[in-house]
């Protein structure tokens, strides 16, 4: 796959911090790669592993989850549960053979628009460097 491989990235952003941060990046006209498709979720704690597995199965080449920094969660402990769940999701995907570079979990506050743009850029480059589609992606109805 040459360098014009444009990876498809799905990003689950928590509504109160990371989505606001992404919004800030947009309003301050920062350069954010278009590969990222954003799915807004109420809290990073809302992430069900099936969301991530289904995204990979439907053809996403990378999945990013971002929530509030520990302590900032609008629902007090949503991101703390998420940290444990995401830790095991990462390990499970690793055991199954999805390259670790395809997964990116992070915390982004509403004011970190700049850091959002940087992190998304780095993540897209990392996935592009892999140079091939994610192996879990389905090829057709019967696959």
């Amino acid at each position, binding site marked *: 796959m040459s360098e014009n491989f444009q990876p498809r990235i799905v990003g689950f952003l928590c509504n109160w911090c990371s989505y606001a941060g992404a919004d800030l990046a947009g309003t301050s006209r920062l350069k954010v790669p278009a590969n990222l498709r954003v799915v807004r979720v109420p809290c990073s704690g809302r992430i069900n*592993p*099936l969301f991530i*597995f*289904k995204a990979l*199965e439907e053809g996403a080449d990378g999945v990013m989850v971002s929530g509030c*920094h*520990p302590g900032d969660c609008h629902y007090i*402990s949503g991101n*703390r*549960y998420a*940290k*444990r*769940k*995401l*830790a*095991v*999701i*990462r*390990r*499970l995907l*690793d*055991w*199954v*053979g*999805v*390259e*670790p570079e395809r*997964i*990116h*979990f*992070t*915390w982004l506050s509403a004011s970190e628009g700049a850091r959002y743009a940087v992190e998304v850029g780095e993540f897209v480059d990392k996935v592009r460097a892999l140079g091939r589609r994610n*192996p*879990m992606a*389905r090829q057709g109805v*019967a*696959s």
Partner: protein
Amino acid sequence: MNQSLRENVKRLFAEGKVKSVLGYREHPLSKAVVATLITRPEDADTLIFDYRCVQNLARGLTRDLPLPVGIVVKGCDGRAVSMRITEGDFAREQIVAIAVACPGVKADGKTFDERCQRCEMHVSPLADVTVGDVSALPKPEKTRAETIAKIKAMTPAERFEFWQKAFEPCTHCYACREVCPLCNCVVCVTDQNAPRWIEQTAKPSSNLMWHMIRAFHHAGRCVDCGECQRACPEGVPMHLLDLCLAEDVEELFDFETGVKQGGKWPFLLFNPEDPDSWLGGPHRG
């Protein structure tokens, strides 16, 4: 062993501690060892325990049994019962655990099962009554780490290939779900069609999705009784994935499933000091 087991059960009936007992018996016709529920002391004479009692009876505990119910438990079964109590299926006093000193069981009748060769807990942690000689129990010949070592050593691509081949024969009969004592969702994710997370027909994508979400839902809960893999008619090594995750859960959350009574599932608790490094990749704060 059978003799003291029967005497203990009769004593429990006599003392009114149990209204029914779930145990093993040799079926008079098929000569196979099957589960049995006895409600009268004289039926205790049919109870047996030997290397053929491979099945985990914890799945058979249902609320419509006459309670309190006694249950003959090996080490792994006892952990399963303990997890079910932890998760609120039963109150502790509703269950009377008859822990047998289990040297290991032989599904093929000749050699100890792989799960028994690495068993470090031959007697159930939950034991109201203990039957059999507890001292002469074998030491584990190999560890869980060795079992999963060959997968750990693979590269991601090799691992992916390994699991694609491993899950290929799966026909979605879900026997692994039906025999598992901890698979107790009211409507399993495979039966939900709004949205349809896992499609019904066997194909590479739905097989992988099923076994991944099954493994995830047992992370921090699976007591390593190995019944899922034994029940699979196609011999799919799905329990291997549970073992891989169990290794991580113990390392991450320092939680041994089913051992400490009343311990909470790692996902029902959190610890403010959980490090950010768990998320992998460079993070601040």
